[in-house]
């Protein structure tokens, strides 16, 4: 479904990502792990259109989408839950979700809103609250719900468990499990490597802008040589 082939992305003269490749198949849950500053967010940003790679190609459903605009990629079926959630704090919960469903027709949007309210009961209770007043866990659920509103065929999440209390981290991973059970295709960046490897079909390990390992979750969990990479999350 998604094929990233040898992309390089630079901030000025510094390459944050060098010749990096990755694939995500339909229905797969793929993890992307690695220490801080490894280039995980840069990789997702390069795929979602926020950053323009200077080399390599991004192919989505067979079409070359390298360097395409984010709003175009979303319409192609690719959504990103950005790092730090980036919900619209001045907008209400409902308005945040509506923005997520901007590509849907009015009636579809109403249906999707109902679906999200069922999927995230905490949000239903705060429907007309300004999103800035939500707790971290609620905000994360809103960020994920907002991305789901576009009915993405590939959902990418950047550090969904970051900054959450342990019990809320559980909620996020349960959500990933349930999305996977529903047959969704996911690409998830996580610092919480061991948890991620447990739920992922496959995972990639990124370090200093380069892929250093790839395999099934179980395989990678046994790679003790990568242990220093996992530590820190």
């Amino acid at each position, binding site marked *: 479904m998604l094929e990233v082939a040898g992309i390089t992305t630079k901030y000025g003269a510094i390459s944050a990502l060098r010749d990096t490749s990755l694939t995500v198949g339909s229905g797969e849950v793929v993890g992307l792990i690695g220490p801080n500053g490894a280039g995980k967010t840069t990789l997702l940003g390069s795929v979602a259109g*926020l950053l323009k790679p200077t080399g390599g190609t991004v192919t989505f459903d067979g079409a070359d989408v390298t360097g395409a605009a984010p709003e175009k990629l979303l319409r192609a079926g690719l959504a990103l839950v950005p790092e730090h959630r980036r919900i*619209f704090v001045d907008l209400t919960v409902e308005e945040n979700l509506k923005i997520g469903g901007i590509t849907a027709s009015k009636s579809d949007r109403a249906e999707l809103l109902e679906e999200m309210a069922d999927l995230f009961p905490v949000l239903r209770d705060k429907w007309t609250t300004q999103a800035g007043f939500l707790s971290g866990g609620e905000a994360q659920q809103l960020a994920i719900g907002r991305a789901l509103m576009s009915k993405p065929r590939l959902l990418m999440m950047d550090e969904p468990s970051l900054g959450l209390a342990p019990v809320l981290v559980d909620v996020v991973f349960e959500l990933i499990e349930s999305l996977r059970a529903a047959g969704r295709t996911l690409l998830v960046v996580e610092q919480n490597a061991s948890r991620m490897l447990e739920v992922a079909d496959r995972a990639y390990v990124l370090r200093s802008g380069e892929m250093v390992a790839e395999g099934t979750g179980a395989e990678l969990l046994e790679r003790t040589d990568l242990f220093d990479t996992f530590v820190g999350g």
Partner: protein
Amino acid sequence: MTELLQNLIDGLGRGSIYALLALGVAVIFGVMHLLNFAHGEMITVSGYAAYWAFQQGWSWWIVVPLILVVSVLTSLAIDQVAFRRVRGADDFTLLLTSFGVHFVVFSLFLLYVSASVKNFSRPGWVTDTYKVGSLRIEVFDTVVIGVTIITLLLVSLLLQRTMFGLALRAAAADFDTARLMGVRSDNVIRGAFGLSGLLAGIAGVFWLMRAGQTTPSAGLDPMLKGVLAALIGGLGSLRGAVLGGLALGMAEVLLRSRLPDSIAGLTEGVVFLLIALLFIFRPGGFVSVAHAERV
């Protein structure tokens, strides 16, 4: 007391026009982080359109919608010709571009139309007044205030109730994330220029009705008022822009009637002094807006 009340009503009329101008400036700033020094050009261009229309013998009934249409089209054209080419550039580049647009429009009219003042007739009722108790109220101010209230209500409905309004607010809060959610950046920016042009057009109708003339630099004064009012209100805040416009109008009227005759000519200067004081104590203006960091 009566005099104060009289000043407040006069100030409200003047401030309403400033509020409409400031709102247009704030809409563009919110979405693009552009302080638009070309905001007055819509009034310059529609001023000449009005002059041309009167030459054809048209009446104000046709000229008012003409001004609105010309203002919106000018705003969209400025975006298309100038700002579209510097999308994504840093704020300073955008600011300089807006200065450039101002000078280009000014020079075009200077070179190809005329440097002299073009006069047209003002509607008869502009100078009419009516009495409420001991207050003498201008028909013009009454119309301005009424139209402004209706405009503000409609704009607020647009922003709160429509998907375009929602997209505009989301884009103003965090442009990149809005795009990630599928908000089309070009549509939002074009929509913002259209809305800003319409607001400038409404203000322009009143401005031109009262002035009864236009020159190549006719847009300079309304632009300054709009930008100043938006700054006073707190850049990026729409509510602040409206408040800033009203405050600026009130301050001008109050000072002009209260300052001793010897320095009454310095009203503008005193207004700037007050604004400087405001920024010392509240650098963000009336309503401070926290902007999401852009990546």
